[in-house]
């Protein structure tokens, strides 16, 4: 398969990269290339110049400071999965990373690239949405931080201007009292695009009552949706304190009415992009599974 011609530039510094993005006509940043190379081959994207930002130090770090995590745009999904604090404290992002494509892709694909690509089926976007993430965009004229909810404006559309580089993603590290989860449904277990993603984060007081809940649905609309009615239905309830004794399997009835109701409301929030009514049912099922796992501490399929 031939690849259309383009120029390739590798800046030595961030300043040089931003200058190239501002001045080179038809410039486009490249890091892992796992989406970009597919789009370029397919003729969907025709950059005149690729600016290789994958090795810029400013985009390569995962920094934890003052209970906040900041992830560089060129950090790979594999690097996320190897980060101990993400594994232990940010289960929703860890689980999303585990479902991301496959091992070979995870070794190249970057967090920034996945967000800039803004595919409706992005796995990182719903997880980062429930973490209340913000992204920074830099150009030679300055840096701006915007909430991820505003950054994503439509299918494959973001607020990034052509001269801007997605620098970092940051979010508060969930408190120890919080719980979260992520489930994906695709055509197979691995190496697949999401048909439905559900991400959940919730925080609880010392009596186990839910103080705050966030539920995001991926691949059911041009951009990930928040299931606000479902979130509101959980707040004030103590669904994790009334844990079922075993994880709920597909087709089984959930005994907890709060979980059942929140899952039903999440399903109603889905507006399937391809008119596939089944996605509402899948959202319901995945939400129910995540909330049950949050209550029991056992993921479906992990029980002995």
């Amino acid at each position, binding site marked *: *398969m031939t690849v259309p*011609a383009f120029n390739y*530039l590798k800046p030595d510094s961030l300043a040089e990269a931003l200058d190239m993005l501002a001045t080179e006509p038809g410039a486009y940043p490249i890091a892992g290339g796992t989406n970009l190379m*597919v789009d370029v081959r397919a003729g969907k994207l025709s950059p005149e110049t*690729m600016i290789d930002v*994958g090795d810029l130090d400013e985009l390569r770090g995962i920094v934890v400071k003052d209970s906040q995590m900041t992830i560089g745009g060129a950090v790979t999904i594999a690097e996320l999965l190897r980060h101990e604090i993400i594994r232990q404290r940010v289960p929703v992002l860890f689980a999303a990373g585990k479902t991301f494509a*496959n*091992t*070979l892709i995870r070794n*190249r694909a970057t967090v920034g690239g996945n967000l800039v690509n803004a595919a409706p089926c992005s796995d990182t976007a719903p997880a980062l949405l429930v973490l209340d993430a913000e992204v920074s965009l830099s150009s030679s004229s300055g840096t701006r931080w915007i909430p991820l909810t505003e950054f994503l404006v439509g299918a494959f559309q973001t607020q990034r201007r052509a001269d801007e580089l997605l620098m970092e993603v940051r979010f508060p590290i969930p408190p120890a009292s919080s719980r979260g989860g992520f489930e994906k449904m695709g055509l197979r277990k691995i190496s697949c695009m999401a048909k439905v993603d559900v991400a959940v984060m919730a925080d609880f007081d010392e009596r186990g009552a839910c103080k705050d809940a966030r539920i995001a649905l991926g691949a059911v609309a041009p951009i990930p949706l928040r299931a606000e009615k479902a979130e509101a239905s959980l707040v004030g309830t103590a669904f994790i304190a009334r844990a079922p004794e075993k994880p709920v399997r597909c087709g089984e009835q959930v005994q907890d009415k709060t979980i059942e109701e929140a899952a039903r409301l999440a399903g109603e929030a889905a507006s399937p992009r391809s008119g596939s009514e089944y996605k509402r049912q899948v959202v319901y099922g995945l939400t129910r599974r995540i909330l049950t796992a949050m209550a029991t501490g056992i993921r479906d399929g992990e029980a002995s």
Partner: protein
Amino acid sequence: MAVEPQAVLLHTLRDLGYTDVKNGCEIGECGACAVLLDGEAVNSCMVLAMQADGADIVTNSGLGTMDKPHVIQESFADAGAIQCGFCTPGMVISTKALLDRNPDPSEAEIRDALSGNLCRCTGYGQIVDAVKLAASRLAGASSQREDARSNSKRGRELDSSNRVLESGDQTKVGGES
């Protein structure tokens, strides 16, 4: 060497004679083109040759030869993990990346490590067996090496065989824009 700016690492390696790097799908789905890029298993169809400038690249043929195969390659043959063989170089590369990081993987970890490599002939059972076999053989070799530290004669023999097994043909691909 000089390459075009849009040259893809997969094609550059094949043009250089490393035809063990297979061109399967060119969309990052099949893993037949997997190579180790600075120790990480990646799809070479997704990497610009220029992005690999100065990197260490190891392909399947860099791990071992027909005369002196790598333990992983031998294990694939012994476990019958090969039918047409087209996916095998990529499978071997993903296995090498896994065992370098995790010498004693569980079956789930093996399946996860090979999740980017598709086989359309044999199914994956014997491939997973091959990785387990390679892991146990490498573990046996390393525990023998431990024993050999107190046995200088045997130590010399094992050290030399180990050098053969681990000496990768590391190719540098560079470019001028």
